[in-house]
């Protein structure tokens, strides 16, 4: 063959093959990821209402009007946006720490030398492989006002709430027990993003709390596997040395295990933040934002504004604001974790990809 004789020919060949091998990936990612982002960026600064093509005569440049509409103009859209931010913020604040702690707890348990450890790992991981649709249907049944959970509660003499139909905020419910029924006027009369301070402080609604439980249920298994890998990387001899020194289980956990797996903790918190800000499927299947908009999330609102209200500019602007929020949190965690995880990272990346794809769960 010719190329055996001509060295540059081989390289030339290789370059052609390289681009050819990459072509499908470049085309598909380009056409369905990069170009769409540019197009949506245009829509977010236009008044396109869904008629015709956004690149045609139906769309006009309106500057930052859509962003202003959401961020500064009082009205229904701003109120919905503020409400969705509040809902999702509480969802994040509750889900991320709880799922991290539960996953670590489970990982520590299944890292012990116990019988049937394979069975337990499988049981804890199984919810992670099921679809969000199937799990949501199951939770709609379990948390029905006359469903399994309330039946269980009735055995111990409790009257369960209406769960998915209950818009009351957890914090409001708690302070009600201390006799606070009406908001102090200072909180009720001041607004941020169309939502009163009183409502900002409501906490997640009972309905949202069910989604919080569901998120922990479905993601803790995945993160358990990541923690398990990290735990198994800890050298046995360190723990044994500590044992010889008479350290208790808790002290070993607190002063050896946790510092050793800190990079993993940060990674899981980051993945958790990215995932929880994207909650969409569960809302779409379960409540569509009800009751009283307390399960509305920015992702669902963005979808709804575009596909149902034909406010495409507003919907696209919302998507970019959500993008900014996620980038913001990712950068924050990056800054916190910088210079801690240089060596472990490479080994970890592949495993991460396994989980990262399912970020929305």
């Amino acid at each position, binding site marked *: 063959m010719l190329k055996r004789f001509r060295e540059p020919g081989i390289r030339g060949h290789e370059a052609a093959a390289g681009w050819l091998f*990459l072509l499908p990936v470049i085309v*598909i990612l380009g056409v369905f990821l990069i170009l769409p982002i540019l197009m949506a960026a245009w829509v977010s600064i236009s008044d396109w209402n869904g008629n015709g093509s956004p690149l045609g005569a139906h769309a006009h440049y309106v500057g930052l009007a859509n962003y202003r509409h959401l961020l500064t103009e009082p009205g229904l859209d701003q109120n919905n946006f503020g409400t969705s931010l509040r809902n999702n913020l509480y969802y994040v604040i509750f889900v991320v720490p709880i799922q991290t702690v539960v996953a670590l707890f489970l990982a520590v348990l299944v890292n012990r030398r116990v019988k049937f450890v394979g069975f337990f790992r499988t049981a804890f991981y199984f919810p992670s492989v099921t679809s969000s649709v199937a799990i949501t249907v199951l939770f709609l049944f379990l948390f029905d006002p006359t469903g399994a959970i309330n039946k269980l509660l009735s055995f111990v003499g409790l009257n369960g709430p209406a769960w998915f139909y209950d818009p009351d905020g957890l914090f409001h419910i708690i302070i009600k027990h201390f006799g606070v029924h009406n908001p102090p006027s200072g909180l009720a009369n001041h607004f941020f993003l169309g939502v009163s301070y009183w409502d900002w402080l409501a906490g997640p609604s009972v309905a949202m709390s069910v989604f919080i439980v569901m998120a922990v249920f479905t993601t803790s298994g995945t993160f358990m596997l990541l923690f398990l890998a990290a735990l198994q990387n800890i050298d046995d001899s360190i723990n044994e040395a500590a044992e010889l020194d008479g350290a208790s289980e808790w002290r070993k956990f607190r002063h050896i295990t946790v510092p050793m797996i800190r990079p993993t903790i940060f990674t899981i918190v980051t993945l958790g933040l990215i995932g929880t800000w994207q909650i969409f499927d569960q809302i779409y299947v379960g409540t569509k934002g009800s009751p009283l908009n307390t399960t509305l999330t920015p992702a669902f609102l963005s979808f709804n504004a575009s596909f149902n209200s034909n406010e495409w500019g507003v919907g696209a602007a919302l998507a970019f604001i959500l993008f900014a929020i996620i980038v913001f949190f990712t950068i924050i965690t990056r800054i916190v974790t910088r210079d801690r995880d240089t060596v472990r990272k490479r080994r970890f990346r592949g495993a991460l990809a396994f989980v990262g794809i399912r970020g929305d769960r």
Partner: protein
Amino acid sequence: MSASTGVSGPRSLPTTAQSERRQRIARTLTYSFLIAVAIVYIFPFVIAVVTSFKTEPNATADPLGLWPSPVSTTAFHDLYTGQDFLRWVKNSVIVTLSVTFLRVFLDSLAGYALARLQFRGRGLVFAAIVAVMAVPGVVLLIPKFLMIRQLGMYDHYSGMIVPLLVDAAGVFIMKNFFESIPVSVEESARIDGASIFRIYWSIVLPMARPALVTIFILSFQGSWNELAHFIISAQSSSLNTLTKGVAQLASGQLGSGNRYPLKLAASCLMTIPVAALFFIFQRRIMNVQSGALKE
């Protein structure tokens, strides 16, 4: 591993009896926690399966009962006759299989080029792929819809399948894997004059089976369970996948009453393929983090 098992242990810093008692308590606690959590995790699925064999009145009156009375297959029968269930299954199978097989092929092709072939611009492409990986999926719903519609692929299989054919994370996994296997075999094949595609296809791919299986599992699970993309890429009910069909069932768009047995039956059935895949590849999924990807 953490605690020593206490089977043998010449170690006797506290008294042996004391430490043995401590360990017995620790072990009892561990098992109680494990069993309690396992019940919490498994019970909902048991309820789902049992309820799908109940009648609707029975499911409503006795949501906790672990034995349907009477045992009824009405839910499955209704699903089969009253809904487009079989069509949903068909669509899910078509989309999932196309996406999975093509994705395994395209991801590995690109991963190989990025790991092994020398050419200018390679680093740039790789950096772009890593950057793309960081874009959160939900943010892309509207953008993707706009593009799919612009290209005339809306409401066709093509719009449902093509955008899912490539995933940056998969390319990343394949690249890492190819870099971890020795280059010597390929070099001798190259000296023998084998073409680049031939080397990739008949020498490298067979060696890459563990990574290919990983991509296969991820893609299958991902596209079978996908909902949002199908919502924005098609509207005809004839193109409903299982996720979309069952989502419509759940929100009561397709009938009245609570119909929990029907919905749960559908949920159980749609879980079977991913569950089967999980149990088949259980070993490798559970081990994937402790280095299986690095084999």
